[in-house]
């Protein structure tokens, strides 16, 4: 399959892959209420992915028949769920980014504007969900504080890629979004008595890797699970 990395494909892949990761919590979440919350967020993201990938081509073909190197999602969203704190840290980093980006795109002439305008309200809720949990885990028990800090630290390296300009979205003020993101994350972490991580933010190899089709070790297994049914039984219906 020939793939052109349009902005719709790129942002659609972020939503698709994070949706799949969150869906893995079904049956495993700490409590039923939280399972429904994570599933709701996953479904919001899946809805975004369907709109975006349909702008880029056939949503099913793009989801089920692409190879690993043809996915353009951020390495951040493919990271395994880990413990609950890792999932929340991933949500906090990504939802804050996605809200800022969609908020910027919504009033523009971009083909993504209608989706961005609708989705930004969903994403504001995702960010609030992550914010609320970050406060409670960070300012909770010693154990929850330790786990939340560990999660923030371990995912920090993948946040550099968020603000690498996306092909076709050169007009987005990436460095201003980065400043806003940093301000918001710092405020949440400070309120949660957590420390803003330090250290390199270059992903597994270098910034921009996921956007160029280079993914981390666990991504292959994610794709295998997501794609195997469609590939084993092409055209299957029920």
């Amino acid at each position: 399959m020939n793939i052109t990395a349009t902005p719709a494909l790129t942002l659609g892949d972020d939503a698709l892959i994070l949706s799949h990761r969150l869906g893995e919590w079904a049956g495993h979440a700490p409590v039923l209420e939280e399972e429904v919350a994570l599933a709701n967020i996953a479904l919001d993201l899946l809805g975004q992915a369907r709109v975006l990938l349909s702008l880029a081509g056939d949503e099913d073909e793009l989801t089920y028949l692409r190879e690993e190197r043809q996915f353009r999602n951020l390495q951040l969203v493919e990271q395994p769920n880990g413990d609950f704190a890792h999932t929340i840290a991933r949500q906090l980093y990504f939802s804050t980014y996605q809200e800022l980006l969609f908020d910027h795109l919504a009033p523009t002439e971009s083909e993504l504007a209608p989706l961005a305008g609708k989705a930004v309200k969903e994403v504001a809720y995702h960010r609030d969900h992550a914010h609320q949990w970050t406060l409670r885990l960070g300012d909770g028990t010693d154990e929850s504080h330790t786990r939340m800090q560990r999660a923030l630290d371990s995912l920090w390296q993948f946040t550099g890629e968020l603000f690498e300009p996306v092909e076709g979205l050169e007009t987005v003020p990436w460095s201003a979004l980065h400043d806003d993101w940093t301000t918001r994350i710092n405020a949440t972490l400070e309120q949660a008595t957590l420390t803003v991580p330090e250290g390199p933010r270059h992903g597994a190899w270098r910034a921009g890797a996921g956007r160029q089709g280079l993914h981390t070790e666990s991504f292959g297994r994610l794709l295998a699970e997501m794609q195997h049914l469609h590939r084993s039984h092409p055209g299957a219906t029920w």
Partner: protein
Amino acid sequence: MTTPRPADTAATAAAPTDWPLWEVFVRSRRGLSHTHAGSLHAPDAEMALRNARDLYTRRSEGVSIWVVPSAQVTASSPDEKDSFFEPAGDKPYRHPTFYEIPDGVHHL
């Protein structure tokens, strides 16, 4: 499906009993009262409100939500059912059945 890690398993075993129960009231639209929708567990009121949003308004059921700690609800006892409710049963003059309701009046 991913295999749950030991940490996940521990969380599953420990958490549910720690969180208090909350009663959820949802107002379906302006002009109507909040009505009881169900109950849920949450660590505090703010999270209870968010859980209620996810559990009870995901199909556009509401425009407003209240959450109340279940422990704060004082309920009538089933043992007192006869003295509480039966005396009202044979007093039909309390029911507003003696006049016509005009067309177009809803929620009366």
